[in-house]
């Protein structure tokens, strides 16, 4: 049956900000769904709060609402748009939960909106553990023993029945939040209490532990005729006990016989049928007892997921696109397989390579957090690699991780053979408890002579994987024994490359340089070949040019088309804090721009979550690690006319110099200019030339230099390593003791680069500017005033377009400064400048903090706030089309107020202090749009999950510096009817001003204290600006507790003042006014955006 004609307009829900457990994969799936539905002629209404997504581009949906993902807000949108149907299965857990909220609130029924893909009862059956368990028992499948409970008492009873250790898992959370193993009574009680709190329905599951079992996932699709196919099987390298998002995973399954695989396939079909997912994709997880083959169903996601994004990239089968088409009535066999064209979507992809995904962690940002890997997801990103063998894909994935390793050891990060070489005891400890470093310790274990069996006993990683790692170590030892590159024959060199060894590793092994290894192997004809990802193992001809490198005989890359330019774009690699979806957005736009110009665009990236690695984003896609070697291999084969390094964040910039040295034409702003912007002295000269100020600063290569520079600069001083993104190891020091500690840390992070020391401007307003320059003209696309003061990392602070408090002349001065900088530097493309505006002696002084002649994290936000697609504009500039030729002759003037707010992963890292600082820790962002700043801010808070209370008690605790403001704050809160509580100092300040406040004890003053109030739910909002920092301080504990108990906590005075404005405004407006972005911009702006 073809498409349904009884529906015309469909709403899609996005997944909101990037958080741990929900990243760009839902932009990828949502974008595919938008395209799939619109190409069928449906009108698509999209809601998502995340401006950094491609799906919220105004041309992706017909009506795009960048609004908070809350049922009441979405209900407003539904009332306004009256769609016929809601497709809830493409926006992650957030989309699913929101759809369920709308269902439970009766909104869908009231408005006659049909849920397509999966109905509410289906979602409930899949998501509620008891219902799921009953369903599985009905079809004769085993599940873990255990029960869902709603109280600690019941939980204890279950634990008595099944015994410890057992798993505690809250219902309806994303990424398995709060799911952990309890080994003793004390842990058990704590986990249950937290789980009950974190679950939106206050339920936790207590069940038997199956740690150490093999874990598998099946990606399943079903159509309305009950045709069911398996798209991909995935085997987890890390056994049960580590969240699949934190596990190394491999596709397809490697260690199942056909009998076992087919039994799992039968089970998958039975599950999707019993649960009743009518159409679309689902993910089903299984555990297998390695000793007996006993199979247990772990869970099912009745929606597209992180794993389905991985499966799509791993096989070439576009799960989200097909899911969207199935939801509107198509049958699988009615849809073509885009890749082969001649076959249908109704088949099971078969692959002729091995895919390895490795998660990327950010524990360095949260030193206080527990770095053990558990059933609660903690990773912030992932990289995927494709190789002809597991060995090759595994080593490629390790270097794609971009953590300074270039494979499985034998590189700069390798501790083996160094004074830091771990002892056998340390190795055993690191193997026994899963952790982010374990993969490296597997190698140390093999190097130390431990056998595969011994390692298996400690890790329960399947011996097949371990033996492959052993083969890598044996190869390493053979190469090392050969002594030099000359002593290695061609066959062995080729074999080493087929094992995935990088030139960097070979250089380390042979004590030579990467360049020498490369030159030598090219002399010997050992060069990379590229194979296509085609869903069918070459059984049919593939038309979709999606490639990976390997060292085989035949190369499949297409020849350059005569007369057509070919340009390569380097992506951003795995998501990490500081570099994520925003840069992928820029890369996608670069590709869109090139394709519009008729240029053949070539994307290189290693992040499976992204839109950039969708096979139809670019003309050619190379799924490869972003290292100089891998990029040069593609370059050698494709001979592009230019390479764009500006858009993928720090990753491609770090490669720019090496590429240019090899003669690769870098498009846009020159590599020299990019580097000069990071060079302190050259930057100072530049500022002098254009007549701009910067805070006093110095540069240090040694601790002694750092001390003397700090003396000159004065305290407080800001310390940071150069050439590092996301404010890694950036700290504000108030004295020499702090300085020395932070400088030492910065040197470690800087890896040989110098450390920068700046005077820190207290109480200054920070401003971010994004601009595009073509050499003749500069367009200042957006001036963003930060809400939080300078000192909070720009990626973590909220900001507003247009500036909400700075006087017009100051904004003009900033724009003019930006123009002068861009012209003087010779920028071709995007540029971001950070300023601090400080009121000194009655006048505003503008200081330049930093200039980055490249795409910034704020580019998509600016695009959404102004309607100007600046990334696309910049890409066209880089490809040679001037701003004038593009018809862009003036700075965009925003017609409304847009506030960006950051979203943090604190709930994943229990006990971490949430105070904002110069080191970036946010994972994502949301946007609030309104005519008024206060409402835009309120929306941004709501979208970020900070629910400002409408009544109740507010706890105030303000550092000395904030005392002048606290009185105003208190007065306005009391005027709105809130009750205030405060500790000694703040209470006194309020009382002196005649404001009613109750006193509460500090933690060390005994009970009942502030913490007790918090736990008892007597506090609805915390405003706590820090005087000290850290999880061990009294206030740090309060802030950490606020996260644990879900009480909003504001940690800066500026944000508190903005919040009060928002709370006041919310009293005036009973319902939140919603408007699609298409209505906010004149048609002309959007036409330019096309």
């Amino acid at each position, binding site marked *: 049956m073809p498409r349904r004609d009884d529906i015309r307009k469909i709403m899609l829900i996005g997944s909101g900000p990037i958080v741990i457990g929900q990243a760009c994969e839902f932009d990828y799936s949502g974008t595919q769904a938008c395209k799939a539905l619109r190409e069928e002629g449906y009108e698509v209404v999209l809601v998502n709060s995340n401006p950094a997504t491609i799906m919220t581009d105004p041309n992706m949906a017909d009506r795009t609402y960048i609004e908070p993902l809350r049922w009441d807000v979405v209900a407003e949108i539904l009332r306004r748009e009256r769609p016929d149907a809601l497709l809830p299965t493409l926006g992650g857990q957030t989309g699913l939960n929101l759809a369920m909220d709308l269902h439970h609130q009766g909104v869908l029924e009231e408005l006659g909106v049909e849920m397509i893909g999966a109905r509410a009862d289906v979602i409930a059956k899949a998501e509620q553990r008891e219902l799921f368990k009953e369903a599985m028992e009905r079809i004769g499948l085993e599940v873990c023993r255990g029960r869902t409970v709603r109280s600690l008492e019941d939980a204890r009873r279950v634990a008595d029945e099944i015994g410890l250790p057992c798993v505690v898992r809250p219902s309806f959370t994303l990424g398995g939040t709060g799911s952990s193993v309890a080994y003793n009574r004390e842990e058990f009680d704590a986990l249950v209490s937290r789980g009950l709190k974190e679950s939106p329905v206050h339920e936790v599951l207590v069940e038997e532990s199956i740690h150490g079992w093999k874990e598998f996932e099946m990606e399943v699709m079903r159509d309305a005729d009950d045709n069911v196919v398996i798209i991909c099987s995935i085997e987890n390298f890390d056994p049960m006990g580590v969240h699949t998002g934190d596990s190394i995973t491999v596709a397809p399954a490697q260690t199942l*016989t056909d009998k076992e695989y087919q039994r799992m396939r039968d089970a998958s079909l039975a599950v999707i049928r019993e649960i009743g997912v009518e159409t679309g994709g689902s993910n089903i997880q299984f555990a297998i007892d390695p000793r007996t083959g006993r199979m247990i169903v772990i869970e099912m996601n009745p929606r597209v997921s992180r794993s389905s994004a991985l499966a799509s990239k791993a096989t070439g089968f576009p799960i989200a696109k097909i899911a969207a088409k199935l939801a509107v009535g198509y049958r699988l066999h009615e849809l073509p397989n885009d890749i082969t064209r001649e076959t249908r979507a109704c088949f099971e992809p078969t692959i002729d390579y091995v895919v390895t995904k490795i998660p990327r962690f950010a524990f360095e940002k949260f030193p206080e957090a527990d770095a053990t890997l558990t059933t609660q997801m903690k990773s912030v990103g992932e990289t995927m690699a494709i190789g002809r063998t597991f060995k090759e894909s595994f080593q490629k994935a390790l270097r794609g991780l971009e953590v300074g390793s270039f494979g499985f050891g034998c590189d700069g990060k390798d501790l083996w053979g160094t004074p830091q070489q771990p002892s056998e005891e340390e190795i055993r400890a690191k193997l026994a408890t899963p952790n982010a470093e374990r993969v490296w310790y597997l190698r140390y274990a093999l190097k130390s002579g431990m056998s595969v069996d011994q390692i298996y006993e400690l890790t329960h990683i399947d011996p097949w994987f371990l033996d492959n790692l052993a083969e890598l170590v044996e190869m390493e030892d053979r190469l090392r024994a050969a002594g030099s590159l000359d002593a290695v024959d061609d066959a062995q060199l080729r074999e080493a490359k087929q094992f995935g060894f990088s030139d960097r590793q070979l250089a380390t092994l042979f004590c030579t340089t990467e360049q020498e290894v490369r030159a030598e192997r090219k002399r010997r004809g050992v060069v990379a070949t590229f194979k296509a990802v085609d869903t069918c193992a070459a059984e049919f001809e593939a038309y979709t040019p999606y490639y990976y490198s390997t060292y085989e005989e035949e190369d499949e890359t297409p020849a350059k088309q005569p007369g057509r330019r070919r340009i390569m774009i380097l992506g951003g690699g795995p998501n990490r804090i500081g570099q994520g979806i925003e840069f992928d957005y820029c890369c996608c736009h670069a590709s869109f721009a090139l394709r519009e110009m008729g240029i053949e665009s070539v994307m290189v990236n290693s992040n499976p979550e992204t839109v950039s690695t969708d096979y139809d984003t670019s003309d050619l896609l190379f799924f490869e690690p972003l290292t100089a070697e891998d990029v040069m291999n593609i370059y050698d084969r494709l001979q592009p006319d230019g390479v764009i390094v500006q858009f993928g964040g720090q990753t491609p910039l770090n490669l720019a110099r090496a590429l240019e040295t090899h003669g690769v034409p870098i498009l846009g702003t020159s590599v020299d200019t990019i580097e000069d912007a990071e060079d302190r002295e050259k930057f100072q000269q530049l500022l002098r030339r254009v007549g701009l100020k910067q805070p006093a600063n110095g540069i240090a290569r040694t601790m002694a230099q750092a001390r003397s520079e700090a003396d000159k600069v004065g305290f407080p001083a800001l310390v940071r390593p150069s050439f590092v993104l996301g404010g890694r190891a950036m700290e504000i020091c108030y004295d020499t003791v702090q300085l020395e500690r932070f400088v030492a840390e910065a040197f470690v992070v800087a890896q040989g680069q110098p450390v920068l020391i700046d005077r820190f401007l207290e109480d200054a307003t920070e401003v971010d500017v994004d601009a595009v320059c073509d050499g003749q003209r500069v367009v200042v696309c957006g001036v963003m005033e930060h809400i939080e003061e300078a000192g909070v990392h720009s990626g973590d602070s909220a900001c507003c377009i247009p500036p909400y408090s700075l006087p017009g002349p100051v904004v003009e001065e900033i724009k003019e400064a930006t123009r002068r900088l861009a012209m003087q530097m010779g920028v071709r493309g995007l540029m971001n400048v950070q300023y601090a505006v400080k009121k000194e002696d009655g006048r505003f002084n503008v200081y330049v903090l930093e200039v980055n002649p490249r795409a910034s994290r704020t580019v998509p936000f600016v695009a959404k706030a102004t309607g100007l697609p600046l990334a696309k504009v910049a890409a066209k500039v880089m490809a040679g089309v001037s701003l004038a030729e593009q018809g862009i002759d003036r700075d965009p003037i925003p017609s409304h107020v847009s506030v960006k707010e950051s979203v943090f992963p604190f709930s994943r890292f229990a006990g971490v202090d949430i105070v904002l600082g110069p080191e970036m820790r946010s994972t994502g962002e949301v946007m609030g749009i309104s005519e008024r700043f206060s409402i835009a801010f309120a929306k941004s808070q709501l979208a970020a999950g900070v629910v400002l209370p409408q009544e109740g008690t507010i706890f105030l605790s303000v550092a000395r510096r904030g005392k002048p403001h606290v009185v105003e704050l208190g007065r306005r809160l009391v005027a709105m009817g809130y009750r205030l509580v405060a500790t000694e100092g703040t209470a006194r300040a309020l009382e002196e001003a005649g404001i009613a406040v109750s006193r509460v004890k500090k933690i060390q003053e005994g009970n009942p204290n502030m913490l007790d109030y918090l736990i008892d739910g007597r506090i609805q909002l915390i405003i706590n600006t820090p005087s000290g920092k850290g999880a061990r301080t009294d206030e740090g504990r309060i802030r950490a507790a606020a996260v644990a108990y879900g009480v909003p906590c504001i940690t800066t005075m500026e944000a508190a003042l903005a919040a009060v404005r928002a709370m006041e405004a919310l009293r005036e407006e009973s319902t939140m006014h919603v408007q699609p972005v298409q209505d906010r911009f004149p048609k002309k702006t959007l036409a330019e955006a096309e």
Partner: protein
Amino acid sequence: MKRVAKLALEDGTVFTGMAFGADGEVDGEVCFNTSMTGYQEILTDPSYRGQIVTMTYPEIGNYGVNDEDVESPRPFLSGFVVREASRIASNFRAQQRLDEYLHRHGIVGLAGIDTRALVRRIRIHGAMKGVLSTQDTDERRLVEKAKASPGLIGRDLVREVVPQEPRTWDEPLSPWAHLSGDAPADANTIPPDQRPHIVALDFGMKWNIARHLFTSGARVTVVPGTMSADDVLRYEPDGVFLSNGPGDPEPLDYAIETIRRLVDRCPIFGICLGHQLLSLACGARSFKLKFGHRGANQPVMNLKTKRVEITSQNHGFAIDADSLPDVLEVTHINLNDETIEGVRHRELPVYSVQYHPEASAGPHDSEYLFGEFFRAVSQARQA
């Protein structure tokens, strides 16, 4: 010690890699299978007689070999080509490594070549004759041998794989073949003399077919595919099954004649070669596919239910749709190339499928066909 092996194709292409399994020199038609699991079932499928089988999935041997997952007493194929042969066997049921198994059965293996390049060559240029050798390294000579090798067309390979003697089949499906919840009714509860009797003509039958027939509740006698119709009828069958088997159906006159004489005697069900022979017996013609269908992901539409089955397939020949006589109607088609995947006699309970409902290796979507056949046979017995 690493040993070199070479695979030469009749078009002059030579692939050089590492030998595994046995030493020797073999010729055969070079084909590829796209199934990612089930190499043991593929190795022991007699239909591969005369062929050198290349696995498109690169990592083979990971879970070793066991005594249970076999489709015949031994591998019948000529040679086995993989990208990477696992040096360990990791599975709780594994009894030996793949390399050991091939060695024991005298099968020559080749590893470490660009199997995708080989597959693409076959896809583009069609199935080719080849020689796989660990003994002769002279590439020109190997190519000449490949050209001179007999190939499949017009050859009777069935005689090389048929069993010597009739036997009563009493092995049920493996406990791994089903979920615990939907295990079929235990056939042993019905006394053998009350069960319908199926005589299976074995042209190189995969044992999972017999296991299915037995588990569905029938009494099963497996007889050599060379048996005459009169001899078959002496077993008083309630139904006759026509098995899969190797190679070209056209030269198998004796089997076609046997089937022609059985068609109106009792319900008949054929699989793969059995399907081709049945069609030929009814007057259709076969043709050679460019490179065949071999894998576990082939979509087949049941034209009656409009449902799609993901099927296991292994055939290099197919029935020509234009040659189909009026007595046969098409019941199943392949969604990839729209070739015939199943036919049914318009008047008689006689039907067949080109694909492998017994799976092994492959998905279980089409198992219902055994149930249908059992019901047809049961009805025939009662009538």
